[in-house]
């Protein structure tokens, strides 16, 4: 393998990792504040993808504006769905034991997945890529899809945006305070429930964004939610539950790993994320950037 190919594979792997990061960061963020592992996160991502398909078939045409419309409309719609779920269901289990939380989110997976089956049917769908992203970029004489490069740049933008939000705004201060000292925060007169609701909505917004990006990358079908939640779970275990930086690291390890290990190991590359996850659980159960449970 020559150097050009190395760069080519790296960029390809990075773009896979960034898509994973966008979804997994939402899962991690929600856990950080709510202390609930939301297994329905994958289903929300899938709903986002199918919603993008429905809207794109209404405004048919490969113009970039149609695609921007999807990016502007779908993630907030999923966030609103998240609002309803948080107020109606999640709020009731925060103080309960983990098993009950697990049962709730798993039940939601079954309900939402069947809802998608009822509304959109079982056929594979996709969203056309906007024309200016449909071609390819030349890198050392090797062609790389513009769309994959676009996703690769979306990742850092989202990561920076989240960092800015969490570390440079009042809302971010409240969210971070809610992670470490929820009771103190409440005692100071801050409405902690509201902080939790908005964090959950932000997590869902990220799931919706991932859904739109995926719908134009590949075919979407009923299996994508389950597949992504398992991968995202591996990501947050590797990076540390609740840590955005950890989610970024975990996503990049998995994205690059799966791409690079294809060549020497063929189909065994599939087990790579889970081997890493198992190793991390043995060596550092709280992940690279996580903190041991108090």
């Amino acid at each position, binding site marked *: 393998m020559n150097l050009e190919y190395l760069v080519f594979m790296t960029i390809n792997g990075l773009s896979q990792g960034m898509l994973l990061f966008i979804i997994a960061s939402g899962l991690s963020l929600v856990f950080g504040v709510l202390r609930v592992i939301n297994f329905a996160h994958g289903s929300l991502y899938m709903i986002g993808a199918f919603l993008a398909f429905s809207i794109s078939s209404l405004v048919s045409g490969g113009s970039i504006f149609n695609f921007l419309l999807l990016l502007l409309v779908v993630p907030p719609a999923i966030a609103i769905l998240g609002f309803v779920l948080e107020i109606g269901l999640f709020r009731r289990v925060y103080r309960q034991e983990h098993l009950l939380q697990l049962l709730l989110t798993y039940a939601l997976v079954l309900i939402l997945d069947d809802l998608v089956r009822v509304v959109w049917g*079982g056929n*594979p769908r*996709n969203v056309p890529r906007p024309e200016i992203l449909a*071609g390819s970029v030349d890198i050392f004489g090797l062609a790389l899809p513009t769309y994959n490069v676009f996703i690769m740049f979306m990742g850092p933008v989202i990561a920076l945006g989240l960092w800015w939000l969490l570390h440079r705004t009042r809302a971010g201060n409240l969210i971070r305070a809610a992670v470490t000292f929820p009771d103190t925060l409440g005692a100071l007169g801050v409405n902690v429930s509201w902080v939790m609701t908005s964090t959950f909505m932000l997590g869902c917004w990220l799931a919706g964004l991932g859904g739109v990006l995926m719908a134009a990358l*590949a*075919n979407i079908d009923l299996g994508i939610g389950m597949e992504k939640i398992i991968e995202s779970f591996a990501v947050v275990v590797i990076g540390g539950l609740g840590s955005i930086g950890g989610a970024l690291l975990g996503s990049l390890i998995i994205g690059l790993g799966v791409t690079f290990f*294809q060549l020497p190991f*063929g*189909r065994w590359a599939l087990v790579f994320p889970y081997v890493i996850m198992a190793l991390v659980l043995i060596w550092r159960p709280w992940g690279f950037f996580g903190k041991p449970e108090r």
Partner: protein
Amino acid sequence: MKSKSKMKMTVLFSLLLLSVILVANQAAAENIKLGFIADVSGIGATFFKSQKAGIELFIEEVNAKGGILGRKLELVVRDAQLKPDIGANMARELILSEKCDFLIGPTSSAVALAVTKVALEYKKIIYFHTSNAEALTTTDFQPYMFQVVPTTGIEGRGMAVALAGRQAKNYGYIGPDYAYGHDQYNAFVKKMAQLKPEAKIVETVWVKLGETNYSPFIPTLMAKNPEAVYSSFWGGGLSTFIKQAKPYGLFKKATFSGLFDLDLLRATGNDMPEGLVGYARCPFYAVDTPEMKAFVQKYYDKNKEYPADWAIMAYDGMIALAEAIKKAGTADSEKVVKVLDGLKFKSLRGDLFIRPEDHMANVGIYVGVTTKDAKYKDHLIMKDVVAIPADKVMLSVDEVKALRAGKK
């Protein structure tokens, strides 16, 4: 008093209902009933639409001429939902409750392998037109079935014949990681080694079943610069693979080939690159028989679209079945099965016969090059189509026997 008259009414009504059912049953008993175990939904939906349209057209034509042996044909459809256990149950129901005389097979090979056992259990003839596991005619063969679709082995060997003739030494393969992919791949590799010993398979990429994002796999496939790539992806999976692989420049660097049936061509539309070498099981536009021309016309008039491969093969199976019933002079499977061995029939694809040893019709594949055609605005078709005849790519009778002996 009031309740008495009500009672009378109920009795009268029941009698009326019963007599209607009796009459209906009598009418039904005269029909030859065909039980179609279909994969109606999910990834089977597109196939089913075409299969049903083909079968219904045949039934309409035959019934207009007074049926077979004076009996009309009637179709009963059940959904196997792509699941072998449901398929087997539906087959039992079609035989026992619906009293079907013959069965028509599904799309999924897994369902077909389950259903063929039920057909043997009740000694009812079943034919397969879309599901094409070679095992149906070898290790899992039973005499009450026949198959009019090229098997996975015929497809793999056929593509080896087609691609061995090209200027290429390094070959690549990408396909789904389950029986269909592996059967085709093994047949392809074995035939290629016979035809062109200097050929090398430089990369084999297996993609897990259900994966739709091919981005992590395409660079691997291209890393060793294969000059020709054979793929076992099909249908929606192949369509999205082509769309995803195009911006990687795969089609500029290598001759890519796969199953380019009409539904795939329609689904991929004008995203389909020109100059790919593909194969089809029954491309209506490339088969020049008067029967095919007449069929296409009638099909188009009725359904307002051209017949996909699945419609043609389902129709061909009906031709063979009808021929066998006429020859046997009865719709009794036990007697019809006796005329199946070596049965000759005039299919839309030309004269075919059913080989006695494995009840496989001598069907080959059609290989061509994708091209735009003024007649079809929304999709490409294949030009320079060559038929790769069955005698070049079918398993020999000895091979079939060896496979069966190996199982025991």
